[in-house]
């Protein structure tokens, strides 16, 4: 009951503004054509005043109407009025639901609607995935400096012969060689130096030397190419026979570094330690180049220059 009187009170404030052209139409219908005409001008002014004219309803009117409504039987009946849906409506609705939302023509009547929240969730997920991928690429992936060493890599070929090797082992090694040879490799620079080496020998195994650079060769093995003396060492050191005059005794700590450089995970990628060691090697190479290759101020064959560089 209080709500209906509230509606009535709001109705007392209700007003309708006539259309803007209503005044012009009225003037036309009254025959007023020219506002500059003195007779027509006075009529215009009168009509404008009339436009602003308003009469307020008498004060008793509202309570009277209110009383009439409150006691009106028809309105109270209307309040209780209910309209029932058609009897067959429910069964028809259920039938259509069971049919899968398709109409009589077979067209889909029910469309899939995704709420706006779902779109937001999907967009947020995609953005997070993209950001995560960017972070991984920029920070977690191997350092670019390793690429300088990697660029020089010519994929080494596994040794072909070993003394006293059994046939099965040789076949196994040859199979691996085939898979390695299919990979692309950069051509080595030809040199007519007498000592230009293509191979070095370690524990009766021959390995090609990449760019005549032993350290780059050791850093260039991939997962399937790491030789046994690195992956399964029997001793802490090894000796490299470069040529008939030069056999290098690799120290224990250097052997360890070479082993660490060639550690791989199960997904055939180098471990974090391997990447760190390769990065350290790259730094060494750069320092060596800076010291001995930029000019002839320092001589690596001179013990004084070498000692002052190393220590």
């Amino acid at each position: 009951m209080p709500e209906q009187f509230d509606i009535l009170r709001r109705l007392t404030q209700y007003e309708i503004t006539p259309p803007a052209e209503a005044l012009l139409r009225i003037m036309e219908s009254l025959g007023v054509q020219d506002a500059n005409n003195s007779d027509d001008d006075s009529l215009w002014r009168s009509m404008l005043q009339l436009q602003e004219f308003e009469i307020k309803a008498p004060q008793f009117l509202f309570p009277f109407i209110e009383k009439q409504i409150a006691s009106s039987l028809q309105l109270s009946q209307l309040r209780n009025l209910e309209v029932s849906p058609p009897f067959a409506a429910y069964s028809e609705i259920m039938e259509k639901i069971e049919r899968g939302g398709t109409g009589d023509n077979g067209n889909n009547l029910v469309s899939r609607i995704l709420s706006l929240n779902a779109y937001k969730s999907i967009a947020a997920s995609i953005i997070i995935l993209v950001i995560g991928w960017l972070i991984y690429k920029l920070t977690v992936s191997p350092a670019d400096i390793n690429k300088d060493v990697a660029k020089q890599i010519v994929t080494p070929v596994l040794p072909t012969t070993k003394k006293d090797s059994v046939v099965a082992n040789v076949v196994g090694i040859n199979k691996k060689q085939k898979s390695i040879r299919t990979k692309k490799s950069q051509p080595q620079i030809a040199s007519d130096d007498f000592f230009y080496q293509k191979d070095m020998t370690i524990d009766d195994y021959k390995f090609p030397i990449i760019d005549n650079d032993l350290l780059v060769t050791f850093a260039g093995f991939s997962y399937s190419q790491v030789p046994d003396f690195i992956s399964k060492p029997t001793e802490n050191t090894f000796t490299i026979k470069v040529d008939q005059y030069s056999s290098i005794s690799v120290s224990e700590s250097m052997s360890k570094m070479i082993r660490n450089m060639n550690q791989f995970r199960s997904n055939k990628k180098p471990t974090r330690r391997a990447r760190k060691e390769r990065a350290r090697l790259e730094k060494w190479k750069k320092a060596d180049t800076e010291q001995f290759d930029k000019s002839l101020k320092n001589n690596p064959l001179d013990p004084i220059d070498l000692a002052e560089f190393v220590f």
Partner: protein
Amino acid sequence: MSISRLKFFIVTFVTGFFSLHSISQDSLLQSKAHHKAKEINRLTISYSLLLKSNKSNTGIGEAYNGGVKTIFIDNHKARVRLVSLMRMQSVFIMQPGNPKQAAVITKESGKDKYKYNLTAEQWKRYYRKYDSVSCELTDDSTVILNYPCRKAIIRLKDGRSMEVFYTDSVSNKMLSKVEPAFSCIPGLVLQYEYKQKKGSVVFTATSITDAYIDPGVFKAPAKGFVARKFYISSSQKPGNKIEEEPDQDADQENDQ
């Protein structure tokens, strides 16, 4: 014989024995020293490179540790070659008579192989550190590769010094050209060591032979090496900016 007399004879005998022994040894060394050194025209000497340090490893030095330095000499030709994990490098001493090409320095390892052709003047500048070195011969001795060696101390004019052990049993006129640092040493150096506070670098001879040497060993490479102009920077420290000083004497033709 009384005990006191016996003691006297024993003491006298022992004293006399060791005195005679030391005299005889000295005579042996002196006789060897005075014996005319054998001039050998063809020599191949290999040295092992060892870096010693108080630490368990020498860091970047491990890439040089265990390396081999070989000196090849055949009459007037010579080559010094260093082979290590870090790099391979050679110095070719050319035959005399051509002052425009006294030596060739080559870097044989890595992607960027290069070579320098040095004139006689540039060769002197390259080893200017050893100008006016002085040698102090000492009485210390040792035996290396069955060669009796004496110790000498080489002092540079800037105060740095190097300990060497040399044998005068072997001589060759090319030795002073091959190793200008040892120009004042009267013989073949079989071990030399430069000590620093944190460690030392030692080259020790592991073999000496006069076997045949392929002439190709002494031929400076022509292919696969980029020819560079000789220059020595005025200041160059590891990690610092390099200030280049173009060599005013450089008038080299580019081979390639």
